[in-house]
């Protein structure tokens, strides 16, 4: 996913922001079912690779859409690509 934000943020800020949005929209149960974690974080490019359960991909997409703030600053996020393996993902996006 790519995060567009005018100010700098950390991986922890991103995780908290996604958790807040996921909890508001899906509740604690839905959030825990998503079972996602940040695998790689490229803060200089504003990109992160997230891993989640296969049946929670759409839930995570929806959570990403509803993200409005990261570290208290206005932000937007969108899913660049989803894939089953990190290798295929990095190959498709051209990043290593």
């Amino acid at each position, binding site marked *: 996913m790519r995060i567009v934000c005018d100010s700098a943020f950390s991986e922890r800020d991103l995780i908290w922001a996604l958790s807040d949005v996921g909890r508001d929209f899906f509740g604690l149960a839905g959030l825990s079912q998503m079972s996602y974690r940040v695998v790689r974080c490229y803060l200089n490019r504003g990109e992160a690779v997230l891993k989640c359960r296969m049946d929670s991909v*759409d*839930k995570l997409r*929806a959570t*990403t859409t*509803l993200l409005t703030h990261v570290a208290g600053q206005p*932000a*937007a996020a*969108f899913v660049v690509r989803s894939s089953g393996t990190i290798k295929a993902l990095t190959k498709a996006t051209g990043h290593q």
Partner: protein
Amino acid sequence: MKTFVDINVKPPIGEYRVQEQMAKMAGQMGLSVVGVRFPSGIASSEIESSREIFRSRGLDVAVGIDLVPNNRKQLLTQLGALRNKFEIVRVICSDTKIAEVASRDSRVDLISLEHQKSFRSRLSALCNCKSALELEISRLIAPSLKARSESLKALCEEIILAERCDVDIVISSGATNAITLRAPRDMASVFTFLGMPKDVSLKAVSNKPLELIKANRDRLSGNSAGSGVRLVRVKRQ
């Protein structure tokens, strides 16, 4: 490969840097067609410059207008004057009577029921509706939790009613800057969780708005005489 459309992008008038950011981000998000939407009364030079900014990024641009009539007479006057100048016409229905008239007028492409507060008013607007219903993701990206909860409830009702009354749905971002733009597949995912079937939500960000734009372009170019009627001109020798 699917063609994704965001039929409701509201570039801020005169802020060309923000418009360029929006155009750049729209391309990165996988959008092929963008509908730039303006309120009535904007100068055509501003509309053209916005169109050029988005076009320069390789996006196909359709220009639309939002009508906010106060009464039935004003709605019909505005439709008569503006219908043949824009590729998309949306009516923001401030009350039930306007919603009923707008939804049954074939000159209206999209209606918005954001200001309708009751289930009954939404139902009366969507019964025998000839237009498509537009659902904006910006209604969910609201500042307060209470406003978001109210919008969620309203959107769920609109989805149920649209399915019951067999009304087409179009999903858009309603973005006013780069931060409020959203990717089409991501928007479709949100509405899937609000009760829309997955294939319907994907069509709402691709096929449905595209068909609307194509039909209006055909009509505005003079190749179409009405719904399902194509003009074939024969050269006289």
